[in-house]
């Protein structure tokens, strides 16, 4: 158990101007950057320019806001988890209910932004990678709504363990291409999507699902996901009249966490805590905790913390949650860890399963296995803060997609 008791920073004068990051080279300190094949460089540079133009165009923001409200269902509610709070006997626990979004997770916030941008850039074909299938479903959904064909790369292992989402994507008109290379999971799906992109440079937009990839993706995805933290910050100020003591979220690639954290970065009294997937335990080889159990390296276009061997080969990640099953993490998280502005800990498969069941019985909410990892750490943080404290947790996805996995883990057979 790590020590969460210190506020950041010890010397407030050292606080960077958060809005300035990433820098012009796409760097968050030593992390981030643009490590892609030369063929893709002109594409990422033009994406950066197109995004800067879109951001400055009120019509783009208006269109985005309209879809977020009427199609996604934003703002998502802020919910006081009263029985869970009573159970843990500590700080008040609030959930940001991003699992109530259309398609059941936070992923659609980003897909909407990127695919609207793709349309604006005149791209006519959307590709995406997916692990659990949530980003694939969200991409397929927005592509359908905006009338663009969508191809989703998904590891063959994930295709097998996430059949309902595969079918959902097909119902939405997307083509799901199973990837058999490597370990046949999320990182391999991402490799295959990059191979598609480098082959179809003229017409294709690569819609990346997390705050990874080459610059400008980590910035782009963060900006589109920051709606979570902006809403939550205003909602909690409105509800309880002050900021939370802790804002916490699960971290795989880290898009829901950065979406929650970013609007709180300048509020240095708010401690930011990310929870990674410890799988069978950090002491084993079977986990997905890049920040707490990895080291810096270069993968999928950016420099960040990775699970890797001594020789720089990427190790396979493991988590019960397919959405956290990734050997890297967004570069901004790597930076926030390094400068100490955010803290990162982990929860095992078993702890996530127990937290899932507790939340289901006490709050009548089936959380996805991803936020169940954050739920697994919320109790001890709440107790440490005491009854006067406030914990804000992003409930970034709903658990319907996970019922088969959970039944399996609990030794029950579903028809």
């Amino acid at each position, binding site marked *: 158990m790590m020590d969460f008791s210190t506020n950041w920073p010890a010397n407030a004068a050292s606080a960077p101007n958060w809005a300035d990051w990433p820098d012009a080279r796409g760097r968050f300190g030593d992390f981030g950057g643009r490590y892609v094949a030369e*063929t893709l460089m002109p594409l990422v540079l033009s994406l950066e320019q197109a995004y800067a133009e879109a951001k400055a165009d009120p019509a783009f923001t208006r269109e985005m806001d309209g879809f977020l409200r009427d199609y996604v269902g934003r703002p998502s509610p802020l919910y006081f988890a009263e029985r869970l709070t009573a159970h843990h006997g500590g700080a008040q626990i609030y959930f940001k209910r991003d699992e109530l979004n259309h398609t059941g997770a936070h992923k659609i916030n980003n897909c909407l932004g990127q695919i609207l941008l793709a349309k604006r850039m005149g791209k006519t074909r959307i590709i995406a990678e997916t692990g659990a299938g949530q980003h694939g479903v969200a991409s397929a959904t927005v592509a359908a709504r905006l009338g663009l064909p969508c191809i989703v790369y998904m590891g063959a292992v994930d295709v097998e363990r996430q059949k309902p989402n595969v079918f959902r994507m097909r119902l939405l008109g997307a083509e799901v291409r199973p990837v058999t290379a*490597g370990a046949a999971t999320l990182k391999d799906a991402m490799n295959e999507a990059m191979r598609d992109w480098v082959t179809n440079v003229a017409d294709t937009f690569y819609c990346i699902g997390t705050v990874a990839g080459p610059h400008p993706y980590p910035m782009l995805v963060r900006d589109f996901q920051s709606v979570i933290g902006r809403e939550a910050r205003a909602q909690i100020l409105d509800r309880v009249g002050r900021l939370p003591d802790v804002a916490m979220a699960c971290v795989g690639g880290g898009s829901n966490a950065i979406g929650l954290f970013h609007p709180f970065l300048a509020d240095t009294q708010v401690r930011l805590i990310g929870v990674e997937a410890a799988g069978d335990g950090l002491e084993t080889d079977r986990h997905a905790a890049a920040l707490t159990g990895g080291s810096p390296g270069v993968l999928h276009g950016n420099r960040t913390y990775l699970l890797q*061997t*001594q*020789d*720089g080969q990427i190790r396979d990640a493991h988590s019960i949650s397919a959405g956290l099953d990734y050997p890297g993490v967004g570069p901004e998280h790597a930076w926030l860890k390094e400068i100490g502005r955010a803290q990162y800990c982990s929860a095992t498969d078993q702890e996530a399963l127990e937290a899932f069941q507790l939340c289901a019985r006490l709050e009548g909410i089936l959380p996805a296995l991803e936020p169940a990892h954050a739920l697994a750490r919320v109790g001890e943080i709440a107790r440490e803060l005491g009854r006067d404290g406030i914990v804000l947790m992003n409930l970034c996805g709903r658990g319907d997609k996970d019922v088969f996995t959970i039944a399996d883990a609990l030794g029950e057979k579903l028809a």
Partner: protein
Amino acid sequence: MSARLAARFAALKAEGRAALVAYLMAGDPDIATSLAVMDAAIRAGADILEIGFPFTDPSADGPSVQRAGERALAAGNGLPAALWIALTLRERHPEIPLILMGYTNPVECLGAEVFAARAAQAGLDGVILVDLPPEEDAPVRLALAERGLAMIRLATPTTDGPRLTRILDGAAGFLYYVAVAGVTGAQAAAPDTAQAALQAIRARTDLPIALGFGVRTPEAAALFAGFADGVVVGSALVDAVGAGPAQTAPDRVGKLVNALADAVRTARLC
């Protein structure tokens, strides 16, 4: 030393022909076989050798090089094996330019200085890192340059004028022209477009230009050798390694390199 590269390209220019650049994966399927295969490729007429080192996530490679990398990794071979093979080849072949090619992370893992020192010690002449564009290559490029090794830059069908300026600023050894927008070994390159692209690049640089991606057969090699300073063949050779028992892999690769070398040597004669 990249001086070997300059000498080789100058000699071939005097001969009036292009270089045959052979790419093979280090450690595929094991160190001894891949050493024998590379040795065979040199003896069969490869003018420059690209020694690939495997990476678990080769996002710019097609199925052939992916599988070669998987075979090498399965035998426990990575960047250290590739450096050892380079060193051994250098002892046997003092003149041939040796280029190391792969992805950034194993290099990043060693650190630019340590990597450059080991690359120099292994007798390498240049390095290609496919996911290290000019924006990110300074630490490795400068560490290599200090020891006389070239960081080889790439130009592609998506390279426009301003981008070419960026690529040429700091380019050394030769320029690698990626003839198709795509992964290695997937599609055949189109000679007409490639020739026009090379003409445009030549107007901007004196560096030799080697053309690769999408060249599989002696016929195709001859076609591109008509106008490029070098022709890279990779996936076809790597496929030959995997096409039968390991013991006969050097024969298979030697035969194919022989045919490719003949094609390149006679390309400008007819």
